[in-house]
């Protein structure tokens, strides 16, 4: 029994060391959506990935941080005001994502299920890397990704991932959302061990419902104001959200 405990302790210790000593790489993406063009950054090692939009600077602390006791296989995003943040669990258990509606932030927890990628026999060069095309259907729409097996990492921007190579270019079918890698830095310093934990934890369905509720409020307010001025107002639903459906 004692030997078993010591063995377990050693394994945890070694895992931690490995986690600490695993090389961390940084990929910068250009993100294009119907409403903006932005920079996005992905930090990753063998077990952890961290994805963030906006001009992220290490050390920026906008929320309360807390050291996690469950440090294995976790990825964290700290985002600034209006950008979308993504958490990703490599342990195949959960995806953590930090998002906001107006000024209130939530941590959305999803069950992690591997994506079913179809490899397509089509290649192209991105920079000096030979990339192959793959597609998957998740969140109600099809995504395409050009990945390179020359960088054998299954990490990716947003919640895509699980290919046998780093994704350098990804987009949805209508090309409303697009991520294009512009720079890769190897062996960088980054601290994965913190995350914001004081946000209300909800499901993706709950977040979608809250967002719809907020949209309805805005529409009703616009109608009221228009009516006060003797006019009317019409709304156009564009549905530019990345998740068209809740299901991964």
């Amino acid at each position: 029994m004692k030997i078993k405990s010591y063995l377990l302790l050693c394994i945890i210790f070694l895992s931690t060391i490995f986690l600490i000593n695993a090389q961390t790489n940084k990929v910068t993406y250009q993100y294009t959506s119907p409403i903006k063009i932005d920079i996005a950054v992905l930090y990753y090692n063998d077990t952890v990935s961290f994805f963030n939009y906006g001009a992220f600077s290490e050390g920026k602390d906008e929320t309360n941080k807390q050291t996690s006791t469950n440090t294995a296989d976790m990825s964290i995003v700290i985002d600034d005001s209006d950008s979308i943040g993504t958490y990703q669990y490599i342990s195949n258990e959960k995806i953590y994502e930090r998002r906001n509606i107006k000024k209130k932030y939530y941590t959305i927890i999803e069950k992690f299920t591997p994506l079913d990628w179809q490899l397509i026999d089509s290649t192209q060069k991105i920079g000096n890397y030979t990339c192959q095309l793959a597609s998957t259907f998740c969140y109600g729409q099809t995504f395409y990704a050009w990945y390179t097996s020359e960088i054998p990492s299954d990490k990716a921007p947003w919640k895509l991932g699980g290919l046998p190579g780093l994704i350098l270019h990804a987009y949805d079918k209508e090309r409303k959302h697009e991520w294009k890698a512009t720079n890769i830095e190897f062996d960088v310093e980054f601290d994965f061990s913190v995350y914001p934990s004081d946000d209300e934890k909800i499901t993706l369905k709950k977040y979608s419902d809250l967002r719809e509720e907020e949209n309805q409020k805005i529409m009703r307010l616009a109608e009221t104001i228009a009516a006060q001025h003797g006019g009317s107002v019409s709304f156009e639903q564009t549905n530019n959200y990345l998740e068209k459906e809740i299901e991964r």
Partner: protein
Amino acid sequence: MKRMFLVLGFVLGFVCLCFSLKAQTIKGFITTSEGDTLFTGNLLFKEANNPNSIREFVIAKNGNYQYTFKKEYDTLLIEVKSMGYLSQSKVIFNPQKDKNYKIDFVMPVDTVQLKQVTIKGNKRFEQKGDTLIYEADAFLNGSERKVEDLLKKLPGVEVDENTGAIKYKGKPVETVTLEGDNLFGQNYTLGTRNINVDMVEQVEAIENYNENPLLKDVDNGEKVALNLKLKKGKIDFSGNTDIALGSFDTDKIAANLNTNILSITKNYKSFSTLSYNNTGTNYSPFDYFAFSLNAEQLNEKDWYAQKIISESYFNNFLESRLINVNNQFFGNYNGIFRIKKRMSIKLNLYAISDNIKNNQFIENEYNLSTNSFVTSDAISIQKKPTQYRADIEMKYNTSKNSLLEYKGKIRQEKIKTPTFILQNQNTPISLNLITKDFLSKHELLFTQKLKKQKVVQFLVLSTHNSLPQTFTTSTYWADQTLKNNQESKFSRNQTTAKVTLLGAKNNDRYVFELGIKNENTPYFSLLSASNNQSQISISENNLDYNRFKIYQLGAYHFNFNRFKISPTYSLSYLWQNLEYFDTENSNLRAQDLIFEPALSIKYKLNDISSLRGKVGYNVEPNTENHFFENDVLTTARLFKSNIPNLNLRNTISYSLFYFNNNLDKQFDMQLGFFYNRNEGNFFNRLEILPTSIKNQSFFLNLPTSSLNTNFKIGKYIDFIQSTIRLDASYSYLIYINSVDSLELRTNKSNNFDGNLFLKTHFDIAINFENTFDFGQNRSQNEETNTIFINRNLKHKFKILIKPNQKWFLDFTSEYFLPNLNQLENNYWFLSSTIRFRPKNKKWQYNLTANNLLNIQNFEQIQINDFSSSVYQSSILSRHFLMQVSYSF
């Protein structure tokens, strides 16, 4: 019951076993060369004869992997990859379907540590709706300096070498905007030839362009424009200064100085340039060397008075940069001010002064029916143009749906052309031509949006151009000075008023317009001769030509499926009145009802190619330069006159144009056919004497026709890493002339021009560019059945060397053969540039050498049905320049 479950279980188990026997699985263990378990790695499964395509994969965790194949393989190639380790692979020949494979891997540590890889800029272009975005960095190889050099490399974009005029997908661009603002108007070469290429991040090619946002929903969508997006940090205030000094072979100082300043804020945008050079560069949008018209001048041609006496235009078989011996000062300011949210003012100011010199020798041999003789002229010409110009444009949104615009222009130009000629090697003649050109324009345009898809516009336009010319020839003969003095003054006053209705119905567009146009063109000329004792008048013209038109035109553009069908028409009534103040000539009047229909059909074959066809009928009155009856001396030898006629010229034209631009495959192709047939035109009757030529124009209702075809194709070929382009154009013209009092002669002329261009894109330090140009002109006279052929060849070869980011070198060889029948008459120009840009990119140093072999003169021989000419011209001599550039 128990037994039944047992049997069911057995059957299920048997079935599973069968399936498991049929399924092919692979599993194994992966360790590192240091004996550790590999934490994570990717196993890639490929067909061995197609190693670039991954068919299936599995991700190994904690050294273990297991996978059941879904696909079949003839020869299975397994690759294992993991960060920090060298990849390993194994091959299984004829993998058996029912076999389970167990394969372990050992991964050696990879000692190569990559630090950083930049992959930005690989994407060369991107289509977003109507806009194609080119990434500037993806097209640069380091040899480019100005934006025009970049534009020449963009697929789908063509730039005219001489005028700088730009076409996109075969259509002339309206303008080149800067961060969305139309700073330059149609004089966009001010931006493209002066803005440094390293300021530009992207070039956007915009289809369906319209500067007036109120016309967005009703516009026909045929206009295109380019927009320059600047790099971040280049906005606010930036610019560059280039100082180049050196010397010519004649010990004269060579200088090329240029400063540009760009300033962009929320409410103010400006670009200004100031330059001086005597090395053949033209920084302005005006071509005083060859008098090619730029896009703005072509558009405004209707406002200009006729220039009867032309300044010498220099033969440009060679490019003007090789023979333009100049001394040019040029200053230009362009600014847009946003006064309030609804109002903006644009100001464009120009000042130019030049002194272009050229020495020529022209020998003509005439073989006429009555006699034959030779004339020769040794000519020394200077052209001294000066121009001052101010344009102002004010825009005011009177409401959300209306826009008031005022555009004003005032221009004063003076060109002095003193020339010295030694005629027939014994008669010295001194010429002096002074041309003054004053132009003013006022335009008021009001746009009112009535509904979302209906807009009305009201326009009033008034222009005035006066063009007085004084041409003096002085001949020294037998102790006497014989002078001819020719005064010639054309003016043109034009007033237009029109109302236009533009609308849309679903995808269709329509335009209806009602307008009136009045043009008044008075002309006066006086030729007098004087010697030491007396002065006499030789020839005088004094006339007034008036033209008044009331018209209505309409166009409807049907858009359905892939078709766009556009019928158009114009119905007008034209009054012409030609009054001679000299009572010997009788006045002429004419009234005509004119109907001009046209039909255009465009078919979009797919996203990358289209076919356009057009047929049109057009009626035009004759131009005013055919209305003066008495002689006007236009060169030292040439007298012009006319037999005036107010008949109209009819033209029927057909065109067919195919366009294909596949950016993904880096392939583009154009094929066009254009046929015109004119009925009614002015023809020339030439009377040739040893010391003079008389050219009388007369009108005949005889047809002339022309057929033009052009073909362009370009492709990037991956296996040789090179771009190849072929341009070919062919024209066939039937024209009539009359020489030496003979009957009319029908002549046929066909021209062919071919250009083959090859450019490499190797990933090494050295690249090449190679251009072949071949031209042939063939003239045939039907009566004499004589054929004359001129063939010429040009070859340009460029070596580009870029050993690293700091150094750039290029060597250029240009070979010219003006006449393939005279191989000994050839010209070879060498030039070279060395450029150094230190780590601090603000500074740059250049060393340039031009015309290294110091070619002094250029000679070309032209032959037609009644004469042969030898033309010889001086060239910009050998010179070196050391340049320092600073960007801020």
